[in-house]
């Protein structure tokens, strides 16, 4: 029974972090109808940012967050204006963007290997605080609690932005229909570029926390993070950023319970959930439509 509670609590904390991992992908998809297949690689870059801050500049890795938000906003604008307008006019934007971002993922991974090498890098967990905390009489590593709290905070910001600001309101208008949004005078490309920036920044922030939640990092972790993110987003609801929290927590719980009771099958979890959801609840997924929440 004690193991059950431990898996439950750590699953929820782990899941909240993974909601942050997925949310940027979902935001970009919701606004642009484009699958950012390089999502995991942006997370990886964010993680290396934290590692550089810690090991080269002797900073607390969390201080890398504001710097990375700034940098990845700029990258987001660059990526948007370099590719998206041109792709949107093409025959099949969704599929072409999918392949394009796959190419970008390869470029990022190759450059990261040049820059950081193939070896694992890690940051001691104690930089986020030593020891453990007792929750429901289970001792949970302090670094997990901190990471989950920051994840929750960031998701809160996204929520606030989407529902309580003017640009957020415009963003949601574009999500439901770009044509209508543009007809009421919303600058679709500017707002979309901003959403791309936010999406990549969220990926980078998840990256900063990754060394504490996922463990040691190396340039090749991007691909599996992308698939995992996709699974989480699909479980929650594609195109609805807030639904990602649900997806993250389901994923986190499933992983932790599998590790506790059926360790060797753990890796099947994200893939099986993904396929099941896609097949069993295909309602909005047929054709080009997005599923409704």
């Amino acid at each position, binding site marked *: 029974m004690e193991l059950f509670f431990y898996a439950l609590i*750590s699953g929820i904390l782990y899941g909240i972090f993974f909601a942050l991992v997925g949310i940027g992908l979902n935001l970009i998809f919701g606004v642009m109808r484009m699958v950012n297949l390089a999502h995991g690689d942006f997370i990886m870059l964010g993680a290396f940012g934290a590692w550089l801050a810690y090991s080269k500049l002797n900073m607390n890795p969390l201080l890398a967050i504001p710097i990375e938000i700034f940098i990845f906003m700029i990258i987001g604008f660059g990526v948007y204006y370099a590719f998206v307008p041109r792709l949107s006019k093409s025959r099949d934007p969704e599929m072409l963007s999918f392949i394009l971002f796959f190419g970008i993922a390869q470029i990022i991974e190759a450059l990261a290997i040049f820059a950081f090498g193939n070896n694992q890098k890690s940051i001691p*967990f104690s930089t986020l605080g030593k020891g453990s905390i007792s929750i429901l009489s289970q*001792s949970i*590593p302090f*670094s997990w609690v901190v990471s989950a709290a920051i994840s929750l905070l960031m998701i809160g910001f996204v929520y606030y932005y989407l529902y309580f600001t003017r640009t957020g309101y415009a963003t949601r208008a574009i999500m439901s229909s770009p044509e209508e949004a543009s007809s009421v005078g919303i600058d679709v490309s500017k707002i979309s570029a901003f959403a791309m920036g936010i999406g990549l920044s969220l990926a980078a922030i998840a990256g900063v926390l990754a060394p504490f*939640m996922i*463990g040691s990092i190396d340039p090749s972790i991007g691909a599996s993070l992308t698939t995992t993110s996709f699974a989480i987003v699909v479980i929650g609801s594609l195109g609805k950023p807030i639904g990602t929290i649900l997806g993250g927590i389901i994923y986190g719980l499933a992983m932790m319970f599998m590790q506790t009771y059926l360790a*060797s099958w*753990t*890796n099947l979890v994200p893939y099986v959930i993904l396929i099941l959801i896609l097949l069993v609840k295909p309602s909005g997924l047929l054709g080009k439509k997005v599923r409704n929440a």
Partner: protein
Amino acid sequence: MLTSVAVPIAQEHKMLLFDPTGTSAKFFSPHNPYLVLTSLPTSGVWPTVLADFLISHKINKVAVIYSANDFNQSQAETLKSKLEAAKIKPVYYHAVPTDTSNYTVLIRTIEATHPKALIEFGYPTNDIAFLQNLQASGAKFNMVFTIFPGQQLALIEKNVGTKALEYTYTYPTPPLLVYNKVNYGMPMSEFEKIYTQTTKRPVDFLTVAGYNAGLIIQKTLATSKEFNQLALRNAINTFSGKLFTLNGLFKINNEGAQIGEFLPVGQFQPTKTGIVLHVVYPQNIATGKPIYPAP
């Protein structure tokens, strides 16, 4: 992984393949004389001494967690069958996917079985994640064993910190295991000096294995009377079992697998300046006594 491709190529082209560290038992077969492993015994026999250590110290509640791949599973199975032969049934024995990077919940699950020793077989990535999570979890075990600190100490120490390695056990390999009595090539002390001077990098096991492969090839060429592939292989048979290098005894069986080396058990013990590795078993080469249970 490269070896699995190279073995059939070598066989097809009838070219002798010298392999520094390809330890899967599957590579070797009596039909194929074109393969010689220069360092490390095949992975299945690695835990032999470890099993003896556990049995002789009456550590009878053992937890084994291993990554699901050929290299690690063969070790886990050897260890399990040796322990079971001594009437010790592991209290926890599970495989995890090789790309597992978070062991926190697993460690917790293992803790609940109250083992007296926790053995983790993994690749370097696994060992790093495991040791990191172990330290962060605050769980205490009397004995913790991992593979790669004994081979790639610098890498592991950089990632997990010295503290996380204190009192843990491993298979020490050269340079942690020092062979200065050699009859071919440089002894360890000399090699270490020259290598670090020239390259400004520390010596690790892979460096030693590379140098050792060079030594074996050199000795083969010097010994063989003819320059054809099978003559080269026969030449190796003439000095197999007689050659002592900085990697220990070089001896191959009829399939070309290296059987001269063995992997003892070592423990990292704290000192004022860091940690030092003591070989703790078997007794005849021990350099220190095991500190068990770990404080």
